C-alpha cells in the first residue's frame, strides 16, 4: 500500500480533481443503486382462494368481508377481518378447516380437503418464527 495514502490529507493531495470527481460519481451511483434495491413498502396482505387447481378469488385481509364459494361438497364461507382470514362455515364432515382458525402470516394455508378448497395468505405479516411445515 502506498504510504502517502494512509492519512486523509495525504489521500487528498495524492488525488487529482478527476479522482475526486470519479469517487463522488461512483459513491452517488452506488447510493442510488442501494436505494434502488430497497423493496417497496409491503402491500396489504391478501388471501388467495383456490378451488381444485384454479385460483378463483383474492380477498384483502384489511377489509372485513365474507364470500361463499362452491366446493366439491357444497358451499364454504371464507371471511377476512382485522388483517386475517378464516374459513367460517363449511359443509365438510368434520370442519377441520373451520377449526384451523384465523391466519394472517405470509404463506399460511387453510385447506378444506373434502371441498378441495385452499386459502393461502400472501403479502401479509412476515412468517418469522412460523414452522416451514406441519406434520399432521
Amino acid at each position, binding site marked *: 500500500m502506498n504510504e502517502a495514502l494512509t492519512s486523509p490529507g495525504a489521500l487528498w493531495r495524492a488525488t487529482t480533481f478527476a479522482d475526486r470527481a470519479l*469517487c463522488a460519481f461512483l459513491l452517488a451511483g452506488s447510493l442510488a443503486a442501494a436505494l434502488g434495491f430497497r423493496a417497496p413498502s409491503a402491500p396489504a396482505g391478501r388471501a388467495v382462494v383456490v378451488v381444485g387447481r384454479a385460483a378463483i378469488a383474492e380477498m384483502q385481509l384489511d377489509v372485513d368481508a365474507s364470500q361463499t364459494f362452491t366446493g366439491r361438497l357444497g358451499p364454504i364461507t371464507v371471511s377476512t377481518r382485522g388483517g386475517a382470514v378464516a374459513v367460517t362455515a363449511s359443509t365438510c364432515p368434520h370442519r377441520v378447516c373451520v377449526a384451523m382458525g384465523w391466519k394472517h402470516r405470509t404463506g399460511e*394455508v387453510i385447506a378444506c380437503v373434502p371441498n*378441495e378448497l385452499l386459502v393461502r395468505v400472501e403479502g401479509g405479516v412476515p412468517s418469522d418464527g412460523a414452522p416451514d411445515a406441519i406434520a399432521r
Partner: protein
Amino acid sequence: MPGLRVVSRAVPRLLAASRSPLLCFAILFVVFACARPPAARRIFTKTGFSMGTVAEIKIVHADSAAANAALDGAFAELARIEALATIHDPASEVSRLNAKAGAPEPVPVGPDLDAILRLGVRVARETGGAFDPTVGPLLRLWGFPEDPAVPDSAAILGALAFVGWERLERVSAEADGARWRLRDPGMSIDLGGIACGVGVDRAGEVLRRVSPDFLVNIGGDILVGGVKPDSSAWSVAIQDPRDLSRFVMTLRLRGPAALSTSGDYEHFVMNGNVREHHLLDPKTGWPGRDFCSVTVIAPDCARADVLSKPAFLMGKERAIDWVENDPDLEGVFIVENADASLAVRETSGVAELKHLPASPAPAGAP
C-alpha cells in the same frame, strides 16, 4: 442509452487523468461488487392438492424460472404416482390388480407399483401384519375416508376374511416391473398408507436435480433436502392432535430427512364418546386405541409414511421400543390420558432434533 454512453466515455478519461488508478480500480471493484450482487437464493413455494390432500413444495433457488419449473415437475411426479396407485380410478395399475383378485393369471405392473408393493409386503412381514396393504375391504366397509360409519362386528369379521398380505404374491419379475396377484376373490389393495410417502420421495428426486435444498409436504408426509437459504435447518412442527391451532413440538431437520404422522383426528366418526378413526388394525378390523398421534422420522418418506401406521397400531410399549431399536428411526408418540390431557413420549434421538441450532455451528466448535 445516452447515460451509458456518457459513463463509458467519462470513466476512461477520469482513469487516465488520475494519479492513482489503483485506487480507482479498487473503488470500481467495490462498487460493482455491491451494486450487482449475484441473484440471492430464496424459497419458492407451490401449494395445491395432490394424493387427495394438501401439497406444499418449497425449493431454494436463485432463479425463479428454474425453481418454478422444478416445482411443476415435482407436482407432475406426484400426479404420476397417484395415477398408478389410486383405487378411485378403475384404470389405475392398482385397480387393475384389484379387479383380477382371485384370477389365476398374475397382473403385470410397472416398476413404480412393483417397488411400492414390495415395500408394503416387506413392512407387513417385519411388523407381523400390523401394516397390511390388503386392508382395502376393511376401509371400504368403514367408508373411510369419504363417508365413514361404524359397521357391526359381524361385518368386520366378514371383511377380515379378505385381508391378508400373505395372499398378495409377487409371481415373477419382468424386465420392466413384475407380475403380482391377489390370491382370493374379494381381496383388494389400498395403498393409502404407503403411496404418499413414495410420491414425496419421487418428488424430492425431481427437485434434487435442480437444487439440494427443498421441502415436500403432502398432507403431513414431509421430506426435507439440505437447508434453507440462510443455511439454517428446516423447522417442522408436529400438530397437537386435539387443538389444531397448536403444536406439541417443533423439530429442526437437515436433509435428507423425512417424517410422517399418523393421527386419529382427521378422518374419524364418533361412536358415542369413542373416536373411530381410519387407522384400522388389520388383525381386529377396529381402529387402534393406544395413541392419538404417532410421528416417525426416517431418512426417506416412504419408510416414514409406511412405518407410522404399524407404530400406531402395535401397542404402546412395543411401538416405542421398535422405533427406538432401529438406528435409522426416531419417533414421537402422543397418548390421550383419561382426563383428556396429552402425554408425549419420544425416542432418545428426538431431543437432539428439537435442540439442533437454527444455524450451523461455527467451524471448530465442540
